C-alpha cells in the first residue's frame, strides 16, 4: 500500500520534471532558464528522498542536503553576476 502510493507520487514528480524541461528548452530569456533550473533542483531533492525509500538506504538524505546547498549557491552566483557582473 505504502509502496503503491509512493510510486504514484514519484510518477507525478517525473511528469513535473518533464514540464519544467519544456520551459527550460523553450525559454524566453536567461532568467527563465535559471528559474526552470531552480525548480528542477527542488523537485530532484524530493525525488532523491523517494529513491532513498525505494533502495532502502536512508544515507541518500545526506546527498539531498548537499545537492540543495550547491543549487542555492549556483542560483545566487548567477543572480549576482546578472545584476553586478561579479
Amino acid at each position, binding site marked *: 500500500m505504502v509502496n503503491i502510493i509512493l510510486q504514484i507520487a514519484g510518477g507525478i514528480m517525473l511528469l513535473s520534471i518533464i*514540464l519544467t524541461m519544456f520551459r527550460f528548452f523553450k525559454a524566453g530569456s536567461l532568467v527563465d532558464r535559471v*528559474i526552470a533550473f531552480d525548480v528542477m533542483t527542488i523537485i530532484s531533492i524530493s525525488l532523491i528522498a523517494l529513491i532513498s525509500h525505494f533502495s532502502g538506504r536512508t544515507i541518500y538524505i545526506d546527498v*539531498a542536503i548537499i545537492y540543495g546547498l550547491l543549487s542555492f549557491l549556483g542560483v545566487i552566483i548567477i*543572480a549576482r553576476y546578472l545584476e553586478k557582473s561579479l
Partner: protein
Amino acid sequence: MEVLQIIGALITLLGSVFLLLGSIGLVRMPDVFTRIQTGTKASTLGAILSLLGIGIIYLDVAGKIFLLIVFILITNPVSSHMLARAAHYIGVKKADVTVVDELEDFENEKQKNETQISE
C-alpha cells in the same frame, strides 16, 4: 505503525501534486516575474510536504529531514528574490497585464529627488 506509514505516504502524494501545480504554472504563466512567483511558492510547499511524508515513514532520520526542510525554507525565497531583482535591473520585459511595479516607481522618485537637490 502501518497507519502512520500510510499517512506519511499520503502526505508525500499531496506534496507531489503541489510540485506538479508549480511546474504547470511555470509553463503557462505569461512573463518572467509571474513564473518566478509560481515556481518558488508552489514548489517550496511541495518539497516541504513530500520530505515531511518521508520523515514520517522513517522516524529515525527525522532529524536530517527537519534540517533539510529548514534549509529549503530559508534559502529558496532568498534565491528567488535575488533572481527577481536581477531580472528587474537587466530590464526583462514585463507582461502587458502588469498593473503595479513598486520598485520602478521607487527608482523614479529617487532620481527625481536627486535632480531637485542638484538644481
